C-alpha cells in the first residue's frame, strides 16, 4: 500500500515536472535549417545583408558570424554554442575535415593543394612539437590529450 502511494506521488511529481518543462520551452520558431538563398563563392559576410538583425536562437548580431580572417581563427566560440547557425550553410562533414578526433594525417597534408587554408602543424611538426610541448603542454591537450593518443603513446610511454 505504502509502495503504491509512493509510486503515485512520484508519478504525479514527474507528470507535473514534465508539463512544467514543456511550458518552459521557448515558443520561437527554430533558426532556418538551410540558408534560403545560394551564397556566392568565398567567405560570406553575414552583416552585409543582415545589417541590424540578431540571429534567432544565438541572440547575437549577425556580424558576430562574419567570416573574417579573425573569425576563421576563433570560430570555436561560435561553433561551441551556436552550431545550429553554422549548420544552415555547412554540412557536418565540414567540421570533420580538421576536427576528426582521430585522423590518419595532418590537415596540412590532406589539404596540401590548398595553402590558403590556415591548417595547423605545417612543416616538420614532429620536431617542433617537442618545443611547443615544453612551452605549453596544455595547448596539445585541448585537442589531443583526452582521446587521440595512440600516436603520442608510441613514444610517450
Amino acid at each position, binding site marked *: 500500500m505504502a509502495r503504491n502511494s509512493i509510486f503515485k506521488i512520484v508519478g504525479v511529481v514527474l507528470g507535473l515536472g514534465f508539463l512544467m518543462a514543456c511550458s518552459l520551452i521557448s515558443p520561437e520558431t527554430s533558426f532556418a535549417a538551410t540558408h534560403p538563398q545560394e551564397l556566392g563563392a568565398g567567405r560570406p559576410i553575414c552583416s552585409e545583408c543582415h545589417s541590424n538583425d540578431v540571429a534567432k536562437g544565438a541572440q547575437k548580431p549577425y556580424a558576430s558570424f562574419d567570416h573574417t580572417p579573425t573569425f576563421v581563427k576563433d570560430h570555436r566560440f561560435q561553433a*561551441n554554442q551556436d552550431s545550429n547557425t553554422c549548420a544552415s550553410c555547412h*554540412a557536418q562533414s565540414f567540421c570533420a575535415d580538421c576536427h576528426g578526433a582521430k585522423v590518419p594525417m595532418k590537415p596540412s597534408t*590532406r589539404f596540401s593543394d590548398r595553402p590558403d587554408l590556415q591548417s595547423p602543424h605545417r612543416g616538420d611538426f614532429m620536431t617542433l612539437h617537442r618545443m611547443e610541448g615544453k612551452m605549453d603542454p596544455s595547448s596539445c591537450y585541448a585537442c589531443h590529450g583526452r582521446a587521440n593518443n595512440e600516436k603520442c603513446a608510441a613514444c610517450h610511454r
Partner: protein
Amino acid sequence: MKPRTQVVLLATLMSATAWGQEVSLYGTTMAQMWKQETPGFDKATFTPATQYLGIDATKLGTDNLSLHLFGWGRTDLSDASNFDGSKSGGYLNYGYLQYRFDQANAEIKAGRFTTSQATGFEQVDGVSVRTDLRGGFTVSAFGGKPVYFKTVDPRNQSDYEYQRDFIFGTRFAWRMPKVGEIGVSYLQDGTEAAKDLDIPSPIDYTRKQLGVDIRITPASVFDLRGRTVFDVASHPDQAPGTRDRSRIAEHDYTATVKVGSQVTVTGNYAERNFYAFFAGTNLPSLFRQDDNDMFRGFGGSITWNAPTGVQLVADYRHMHRETVGDVNRGGGEIRWSSSERTFLGGVGAHWVNAANTLFVDPARPYRSLSHKEARIWGMVTRGKLTASLDGILQRYDRDNPYLVGIKNIYEVVGSLGYQATTNVKVSGDVSYGSTAVAKHETRGLLRAEYRFGFARKGGR
C-alpha cells in the same frame, strides 16, 4: 566500441540513408608514396592509401530527421607506416541520427557524435539534447559511453576502462539579445570512484569539472568571451608543508574589437593549472598530474583588411610556464587575393625567443626553444586548372639538442589540380624537404575528391 559493433552500426546507418530525400556523399581518395633512409634502420618504402567518406542524408521520412556519417580507412601497400607496425586502420569519426524541432532550436542526437556544450570537447556514443527556454534561457545535456582508444599504462587499463563507464554533461545558460550570455556547465567522466573498485586503485581517472562561461556582445564591434573551469573531483590529501594546489583548471578569455570596417584587434589571456587541468588524463606519462606546474599566457593580434585584397596580420604572445620559464612569440603575415580569387598568395615570418627558459638544456639553457619560421605560398586558378606552391623554413639555433646537428628544416610542396566537373577534382602533389629524421625526403601524393548528391550544404 568493438570493430564488429562498428561494422554493424555503419551498415545500419548507411542503409538508413535510402529513406533520405536529400543525400550527399563526400569522398576523398588519396595515395601517397615516400622512401625513407634513416641511419641505423633499414630502407623503407611507404605507400599508404587512404579513403575518407562522409554522408549527409536529410528528410528521412520527415523534414526534421537527418543522418550524418563520416569515417576513414587506410592501408599500407608496402611497408607499415603506422607507429605501432600495423598496416591498416580505420575509424568512424561520427555517425548519428539528428531530429531538429521546428520550435525552440530544439534537437536530439543519437549515435556517435562530438559535443562541446559543456566544459569539455568530447566524443560520445550516446544521446544529446538541447532546447531554448522562455526568457532567453537554454539548456543542453548529453550522456553515453566515452569514446577513447587506449590508455598508455596497461597496468591501469582495466581500472581506467572500468571507471570511464559513463560520461555525462549539462549546460544551463541565459542569453540576452545584444548584451551577451552567461552559462554554467558540469561534466563528469566516470561514475565509479577508484577507492570503490573491486581492487581499489591508487589512481583515480574520474573527471569532474564545473565550468562558467560568459559572452559580452553589446555591439557587433565588440566581443568578449571566455570560460573558467574548476576541477571538482576528489583527490588524495597533499603532503604536509606542500603548496596548496589550485582547483581552477583553466581561465581562457578573448576580446575582439573591430575598428572601422578594416581593422580587427584581438587580445587573449589564458591560465591553466596542470594538476587540475590534466585531472583524469588518459595519458599520464605525458600530461603529468604529479606536480604543481602551471601555464599563463597573454597576447593578441591586429588584422588590417585593405580594400585592395591585401591583408596584414601582426601577432604576439607571451607564455610563462612555471617550471620552464618565459617564451615570447611574434610575427606577421601578408596575404593577397585578386578580385576574382584566381590568384592567392602570402608571405609570413615568426620568431620564438626563449631566452629565459630553464631546464630544457642545462648546458645551453636559453638556446633550445628559440627558432624562427618563414613561409611563402601562392595558388593560381585558370579555368579548370589549379596550381600551388608552398614553402616553409624553420631555422633553429645551432646545437639544439632536439635536432641532431641540423640547423635548418624546410619543406616545399608543389601541387597541380584539375576540376573535371563541379563535383570531381583530381590533384597531385610533390614535396621535398629536410627534417631531423630524413635529410632529403621526397614525397608524392595523388588525390581524388568527389561529391554526389542533391543537398546544397557543403563545406570548404
